[in-house]
């Protein structure tokens, strides 16, 4: 940031300093290069491009995701270049370091001149050099020299100039300047930038990376319990700056924090232990979260009594220079009571499955097989924006739900989300179970219709009966009793019901396709569907009769349609059970971000310097003015030469200089209006 703006403020004599005739020394060349504007701009552009890369390429993801996204070839290259952590990559830190050096050199080079300029009025100017200024004027006045100097002095003082005078050989030189704080602005902005960068480098991962490079520490890439992390990945309490995360379940405590680094992490030891008593989510009436709060207890050996403090978003706890922030939340291992309802003949004989989030449980299936259920997550409030009947967006509270994965012996399986309570959907109540192939997909929902008691009892009864061959046969006989060709129809009905129970409409259609020639398929198919539905309806009548329901209303009819849809969908559900959550003991975990940033106040100091500097540079106008007055060679009076420079906008200074000339030389009002005031008073525009 070589700056001609500074030069513009000095008299030509003062600029000579930069035009040294000595042969350049090597150190001098280095200073010139490091402080050059071209290097600075190049570094700024490089910094900008690197920053863009860091925002386009999502940072700090697990390496496995990058591998999937970019393939092994590019992954290697990207990882090697540090593109997954651009802002802590060595080359990025080098750019910043060079920028700091470049700015420092620039300040180093410029500040002596600036400081000198602030004090030096440069009374050595010659008339000839003044006349070569862009803004210069001369005048022949009848006034005696002393009277003129006196006048000029008053104008300059009134206009806020500081002036020095020198008399020699009968001529008076007045050198005046104004707004020299502007020059300080240059220093403040550039020193401010350096201070900010130094503070930021202290707070960055510089130290950590240095220690890693020296081989003092080594990153851990496995996810293992803290106790199994080898000594080499532990960072001692003495580490002055870090930022990391730790998740603490309710009722637990932690005295470490994990510092993410590339594809792994370090374990940072804390000098105290943080216990989480309770984590809370406060909600607005809409169900949206209004506040996340953690009740913390700090156990510090240096304290007689533990410190209790509640933190929330925007309200961290600062303890001994460690800032503890509420960053996220998760399940902390909620205990789940689950009823596994077989989706088949055994529907009425459920199994009790005890569960805990983050744990696995084996479940024997009625078919004699084993499945493993992995409990992934639990949420006690699920607010889903759904469209209501009028087509408007509406937040719906669906209550508690848990996420799990059900795996077969080979470890394959789908992901599920089951809601504890039935939800109202288009006027009827359903138990919802979402299913998807991988965590990134959308859920497809299974709607199991609830009965009048909001339970699954009717559905379970119906399902169990449908899967029972004896029941099917007797129902089929009942249906066919009124028909002349009873026996054959009864057999067909029973067979269709079996197919439907086991494989939904898909199995039924496959069977029709197999048995019926193509040309009759449509006609026969329609007939067979009617037969199937008659059977399903008759079975339903049986269920209702057992329940003691006599009159069948619209809602009962609708229940059957829903049940039939659900049974059809079960064939694609790929789970032999519906896992029904009956009770839970909620345990949450709070994600705390813990940081130690000793450079913070340095950064703020630099920021304040920068801001003050910017305002000084923009809004204080730095002007210099020289006046040489001498006796006229012929006759009475004074010959005046006047010149000025400014680092401000050229046109503006020309106007300003014209005003000064009118006042000083012409000794007339600048405009004859109050415009002169406006010009001189409204400097901030």
């Amino acid at each position: 940031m070589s700056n001609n703006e500074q030069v513009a403020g000095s008299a030509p004599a003062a600029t000579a300093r930069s035009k040294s005739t000595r042969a350049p020394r090597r150190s001098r060349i280095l200073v010139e290069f490091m402080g050059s504007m071209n290097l600075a701009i190049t570094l700024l552009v490089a910094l900008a491009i690197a920053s863009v890369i860091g925002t386009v390429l999502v940072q700090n993801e697990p390496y496995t995701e990058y591998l999937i996204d970019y393939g092994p070839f590019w992954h290697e290259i990207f990882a090697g270049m540090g593109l997954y952590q651009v802002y802590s990559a060595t080359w990025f830190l080098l750019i910043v370091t060079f920028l700091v050096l470049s700015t420092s050199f620039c300040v180093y080079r410029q500040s002596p001149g600036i400081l000198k300029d602030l004090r030096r009025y440069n009374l050595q100017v010659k008339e000839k050099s003044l006349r070569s200024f862009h803004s210069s004027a001369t005048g022949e006045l009848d006034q005696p020299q002393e009277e003129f100097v006196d006048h000029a002095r008053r104008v300059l003082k009134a206009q806020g100039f500081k002036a020095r005078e020198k008399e020699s050989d009968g001529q008076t030189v007045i050198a005046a300047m104004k707004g020299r704080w502007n020059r300080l602005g240059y220093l403040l902005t550039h020193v401010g930038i350096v201070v900010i960068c130094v503070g930021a480098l202290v707070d960055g991962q510089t130290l950590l990376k240095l220690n890693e490079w020296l081989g003092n520490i080594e990153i851990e890439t496995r996810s293992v319990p803290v106790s199994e992390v080898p000594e080499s990945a532990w960072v001692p309490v003495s580490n002055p700056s870090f930022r990391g995360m730790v998740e603490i379940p309710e009722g637990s405590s932690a005295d470490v924090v994990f510092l993410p680094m590339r594809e792994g992490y370090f374990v940072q030891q804390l000098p105290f232990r943080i216990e989480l008593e309770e984590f809370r989510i406060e909600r607005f009436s809409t169900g949206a979260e209004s506040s996340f709060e953690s009740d913390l207890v700090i156990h510090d050996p240096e304290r007689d009594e533990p410190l209790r403090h509640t933190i929330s978003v925007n309200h961290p706890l600062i303890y001994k220079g460690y800032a503890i922030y509420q960053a996220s939340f998760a399940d902390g291992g909620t205990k789940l009571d689950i009823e596994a309802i077989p989706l088949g003949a055994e529907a009425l004989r459920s199994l009790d499955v005890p569960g805990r989030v983050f744990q696995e449980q084996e479940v024997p299936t009625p078919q004699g097989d084993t499945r493993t259920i992995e409990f992934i997550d639990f949420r006690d409030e699920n607010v889903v924006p759904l469209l209501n009947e009028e087509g408007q967006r509406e937040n719906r509270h669906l209550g508690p739900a848990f996420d799990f994965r059900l795996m077969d012996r080979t470890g394959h399986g789908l992901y599920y989300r089951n809601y504890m309570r039935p939800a109202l959907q288009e006027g009827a109540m359903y138990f919802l179970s979402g299913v998807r192939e991988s965590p990134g997909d959308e859920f497809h929902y299974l709607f199991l219709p609830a009965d009048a008691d909001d339970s699954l009892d009717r559905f379970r009864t119906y399902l169990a009966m449908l899967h029972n061959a004896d029941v099917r046969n007797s129902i089929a006989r009942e249906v066919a009793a009124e028909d002349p060709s009873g026996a054959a129809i009864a057999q067909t009905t029973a067979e269709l019901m079996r197919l439907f129970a086991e494989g939904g409409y898909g199995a039924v259609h496959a069977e029709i396709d197999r048995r019926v020639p193509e040309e009759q398929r449509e006609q026969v198919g329609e007939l067979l569907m009617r037969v199937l539905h008659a059977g399903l309806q008759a079975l339903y009548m049986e269920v209702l009769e057992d329940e003691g329901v006599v009159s069948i209303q619209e809602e009962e009819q609708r229940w059957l349609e829903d049940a039939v849809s659900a049974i059809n969908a079960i064939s694609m559900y790929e789970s032999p059970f519906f896992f029904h959550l009956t009770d839970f003991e909620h345990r949450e975990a709070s994600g705390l971000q813990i940081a130690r940033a000793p450079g913070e106040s340095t950064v703020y100091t630099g920021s304040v310097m920068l801001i003050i500097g910017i305002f000084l540079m923009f809004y204080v106008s730095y002007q210099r003015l020289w006046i040489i007055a001498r006796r006229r060679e012929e006759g009475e009076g004074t010959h005046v030469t006047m010149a000025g420079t400014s680092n401000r906008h050229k046109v503006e200074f020309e106007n300003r200089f014209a005003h000064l000339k009118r006042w000083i030389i012409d000794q007339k009002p600048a405009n004859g209006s109050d415009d002169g005031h406006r010009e001189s008073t409204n400097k901030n525009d």
Partner: protein
Amino acid sequence: MSVPQEALDFERPSILQRIRPLDWAYFALVLAVAVIAHWQYGHLMDRYDTGGLILAAGMSAWLGWFWRPWQLFSIIVAALSLFGVWLYGDDLARGSTNFWLNYVGSGQAGVMWMSVMLYMATATYILGLFSKSDFPSRLGAAFAWIGSGAGMMALMVRWREIYLTDPSWGYIPVSNLYEVFILLAVMTTLMYLYYEQRTGQRTMGAFVMLVIAASVTFLLWYMWDRQAHEIEPLVPALNSWWMKIHVPTNFVGYGGFAIAAMLGVAYLFKHRFERTRPDAAITKRLPSKEALDGVMYKAIAIGFAFFTIATVLGAMWAAEAWGGYWTWDPKETWSLILWLTYASWLHMRFTKGWRGPVMAWWAIIGLFVTTFTFLGVNMFLSGLHSYGEL
């Protein structure tokens, strides 16, 4: 030749001489309003709120002295806003039953008036560019004044509406994209009107109002297509005192950059027309290149200064809310890129003395970077500013 010294106008009037009786009256009014507000509602305020009140009153008084039109503007806006709030009472439903609120004085009606007026201002300013008379441009300025006043009133009344919707939701209406777009339109218009008044160059409006009209168009689309005007509670991360100073400061920056870019466009037109059609009326009506360059510099300077403050304030807020004053979140990173863009612009101007089409183009490109920082980051990049998560 010598004239009495008293007749010369070089004596700088002291600050007290420069302030007219009306300025003192305005100051007294602002002070009185602040004192009454504190006397009436002080028991509901914490020290930050009190600080905010003092800051707002001080800034309004200073702005009124610095730029006199602000006095009348702020009085009218305050009166209309208070009238709207008074009409509401404690019943939000009056927004649709009360005639004044329904058609003029509610937040939503105010936004509509703002949009219409700013569109009209754009049209008349453009007309003024081709017209021989000064009248269309003066009319444009009037529309711009009314438009920004309506927008400002809309924000004030909306503030009350948020509390009426649900007292526990209460937040300042600069908290979502819809609200900040209103703020952007108001802020940019006012800044432009200031430059117009100070330079007397009315034809600049034809260019500057275009970008304001564009933001109004986005606002209307956002409102009609996405129902963005509906009041919803704030996510916890945004529920902070910092919001009140971080966001408005930022928008002085964005407003300045937007004005500079449009003046860059005007500069390029002028530059081209001077060669291709030097005698055309439009060439003559456009301000001189030096004048355009001067205002462009001023707009970038004020924008850069405030953007720097806003970024520092944002860092301080981030330190409190996210646990680090700089976490290379996409919004932060793009703020840095934007800052570097204009820092380089200023360096080129200061140290190399660059002027002319290159700098105009630079200012225009700067607006694209600004737009991406403001909108693109939220739309295309995930990060803490997307507020999708805690």
